[in-house]
């Protein structure tokens, strides 16, 4: 019998049965097998797609090794981000300090790889052994003539969200450092799309077709020079708001650039992302063009979506993702293919996020913050779901339970954003739910009442 641990009871609600706010934003309970990572992870995922920067992880080997080329963030040019650099601190460094090693490492790597900037990630022990990372970065920056930016991402200093914030701070030191003036036309920065499987390119193409100039896609196919001139944009368009709203707020404060939150997943949210930008451009022409794109793209995929929906109608899903904005979109996107959500949760949602989830979900939906494998298996079992949407860590839970799975994490190789992404998403779900393999799963047979 699986029960929710006492210390977590307020992080789980069921719509209609218990509508008190979902407790969230706290450190994971020790021993609870959280699916979350750490502060370092938050920083690393946000900055990873800056492809012409050097990313040096300051600490022992592991943190760099686990983040070597594991994400599907594509680059149209340089691919320095796909290398994994570590100062690989050893026992003597822990005792005598790692500053010298950091400095040498930076000097050598900058010389060898000529990056446009360098990010230096502090991992857990760096804060403890007292390395003055800021000073080393300043010194090497002066010597080498490129920005060398410390990212204070010691793993224990909070949650993944604090890592997002450290990354935003790091990016903000680059923004505005270019003299270039871009005036006149309506322009945007795309924030919080990571160009997984080329998704940023899909989104960018839509905006450019509308006549919007895209100045930088900071965190997807990102380039240092684009980030440096990002302060010229008329508007910041923020996806993955949990990670990038912080930066948008900094830019609003410092450069007066307004921002909107969007999502590129699903038909409504994708369309809304285009309409919202068009409206703020105050150009009738752009609004018209946005309408044309939506019409064209939707009509292209609609018939196939209908076919898929016929097979999936009435099936139920569990959704457990990193950011809650993605969860909102998935609830809506699943409706388009006839599916309802019975369990939904995220690693980093806020109280308002969970409130909104409660609004858009059906009665009886389990809403959960920072869940763990045992809880998740229990909720999935209680609700008899047919599909789990999550990442690699959630996948075996689904498969062992005889439940279909859709990978919506950063390791995926198929674009799920944009209109064409919606079709890929539907196909992904369909291919797993409708697979003939489930009849060999004892758990599936038990759930469906199939007996020998």
């Amino acid at each position, binding site marked *: 019998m699986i029960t929710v641990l006492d210390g977590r009871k307020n992080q789980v609600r069921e719509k209609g049965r218990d509508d008190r706010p979902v407790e969230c934003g706290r450190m994971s309970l020790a021993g609870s097998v959280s699916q979350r990572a750490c502060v370092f992870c938050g920083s690393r995922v946000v900055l990873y797609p800056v492809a012409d920067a050097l990313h040096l992880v300051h600490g022992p080997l592991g943190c760099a090794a686990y983040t070597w080329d594991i994400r599907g963030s594509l680059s149209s040019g340089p691919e320095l981000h796909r290398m994994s650099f570590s100062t690989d601190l050893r026992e003597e460094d822990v005792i005598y300090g790692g500053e010298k090693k950091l400095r040498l490492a930076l000097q050598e790597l900058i010389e060898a790889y000529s990056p446009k900037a360098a990010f230096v990630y502090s991992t857990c022990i760096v804060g403890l052994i007292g390395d003055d990372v800021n000073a080393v970065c300043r010194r090497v920056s002066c010597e080498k003539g490129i920005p060398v930016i410390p990212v204070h991402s010691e793993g224990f200093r*909070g949650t993944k969200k604090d890592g997002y914030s450290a990354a935003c701070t790091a990016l903000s030191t680059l923004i505005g450092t270019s003299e270039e003036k871009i005036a006149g036309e309506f322009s945007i920065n795309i924030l919080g799309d990571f160009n997984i499987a080329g998704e940023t390119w899909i989104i960018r193409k839509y905006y450019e077709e509308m006549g919007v100039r895209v100045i930088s896609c900071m965190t997807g196919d990102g380039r240092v020079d684009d980030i440096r001139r990002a302060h010229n944009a008329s508007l910041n368009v923020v996806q993955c708001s949990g990670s990038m709203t912080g930066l948008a707020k900094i830019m609003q404060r410092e450069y007066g650039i307004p921002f909107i939150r969007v999502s590129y997943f699903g038909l409504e949210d994708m369309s809304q992302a285009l309409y919202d930008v068009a409206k703020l451009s105050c150009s009738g022409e752009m609004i018209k063009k946005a309408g044309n794109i939506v019409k064209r793209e939707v009509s292209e995929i609609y018939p196939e979506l209908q076919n898929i929906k016929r097979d999936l109608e009435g099936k139920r899903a569990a959704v457990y993702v990193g950011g809650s904005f993605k969860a909102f979109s998935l609830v809506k996107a699943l409706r388009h293919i006839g599916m309802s959500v019975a369990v939904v949760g995220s690693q980093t949602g806020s109280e308002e996020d969970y409130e909104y989830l409660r609004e858009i979900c059906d009665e009886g939906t389990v809403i959960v913050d920072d869940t763990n*494998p045992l809880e998740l298996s229990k909720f999935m079992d209680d609700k008899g779901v047919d599909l789990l949407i999550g990442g690699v860590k959630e996948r075996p839970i689904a498969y062992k339970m005889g439940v279909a799975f859709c990978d919506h994490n950063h390791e995926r190789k198929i674009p799920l954003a944009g209109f064409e992404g919606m079709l890929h998403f539907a196909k992904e779900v369909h291919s797993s739910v409708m697979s003939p393999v489930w009849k060999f799963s004892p758990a599936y047979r038990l759930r469906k009442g199939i007996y020998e």
Partner: protein
Amino acid sequence: MNKIDFSGTKSFTSTRNACALCAPLGATLAFRGIENCIPLVHGSQGCSTYIRRYIISHFREPVDIASSNFSEESAVFGGSENLKTALDNVIRQYHPSMVGVASTCLSETIGDDVPMALREYSASGRGDGVPVVQVSTPSYRGTHAEGFRGAVRSAVESIAKGGTSDGSINFFPPIISPEDLRHLKDILKDFGINGTVLPDYSESMDGGAWENYYKLPAGGTPVKAILNMGRASASIDIGLCVTAPLSAGRFLSEKFGHVFYSTGLPLGIEACDAFFRILSELSGNPVPEKYLKERGRLADAYIDAHKYLAGKRAVVYGEPDLATGIAQFIEETGVKTVLCATGSRGMSAGFSSSLPQIDGVKCALADDADFTTMLELCRDLKPDMVIGSSKGFYLSKNLGIPLIRAGFPVHDRFGGQRLMHFGYQGTQQFFDRIVNAVMEYNQNSNSIGYSYI
């Protein structure tokens, strides 16, 4: 083999594309090879989550690893309270037979005294009497290879008890696949040996489809079997590079006065012969006919394929025990190991001169290697193939030569948990993969498109 001479190659202070993972990963993998044991990483939440994701990507099984989840406060004032809370919660939720605690660079740097915290924990009557084994695994001191051996050593140190000999034999393999472990157990059965294999994740990391969700996958060496390891008549370390402080077999044999053997990974005919000889000696039984036939087929395959492999040059890497095992094996087949590399630091010491030279070609043995340095060395070494984990795809792609996948992690192909590297049978499968990789390369790189090779 000579230790590699790095002079003339640009040596970097940083590690570029590491050829190792961190020590707690190895420890948690070993703990998952103990029945109903849950690993607990004493450090940041990220440590356990990164490790879980990595292990899952290879084995495709649920891998729950708890974390004591340090906060800023625990980093300043010590993590023992977090550790105790974590133990409470994980024992309450999983009802494990054992908890395996692996420390991290974080907890070690702040000087957390884990053994003391555990003594306090059990003295206060918490934890329902569930045994807790702890291993010190700061990643600034060792890699996953050492973490794996360290966890096994800790488990026997704290659990094994003596008593009248029960005639059993203890086996301590390096990181090999679940399929390898199943094969090892079959071999023992066929010899009539009452063997205890530690760790044994043959089922827990490669199990069947379930009817109900299990909190912890079934399988693994029972805690009770570890308890009895002191009563065995012999202990065998498998792998040539086990250092004395990490050797579970050496510890048991010294403490309980039984026979100790150290033998290489049985990969390749000679290494298998040595291993089977020991089994034969200890069991008093001849090598079963089945294995003699396997050996025969393997020798026949070597001969059948020798022209395809003659003069080929290979770069081999991995944990020390595996990398050296592969190097020895392929030298038998006519493939020259031009570089045998590991991200660990303990290979050249343990491996010294046991590798034969072929045609006077000196193979380079590189400790503490990383993939980018290896790639730079390859410009001179001119290998024809790369043998090791998926991480070597970086070499294979840049050099335009085949990668024959082996070891851990294999996360760009399917079935890494069923790849074999053990026994005559495992060597046969491995050998076939190598020959086929060469044939496939020849076929694809030839414009004629031979369909008969």
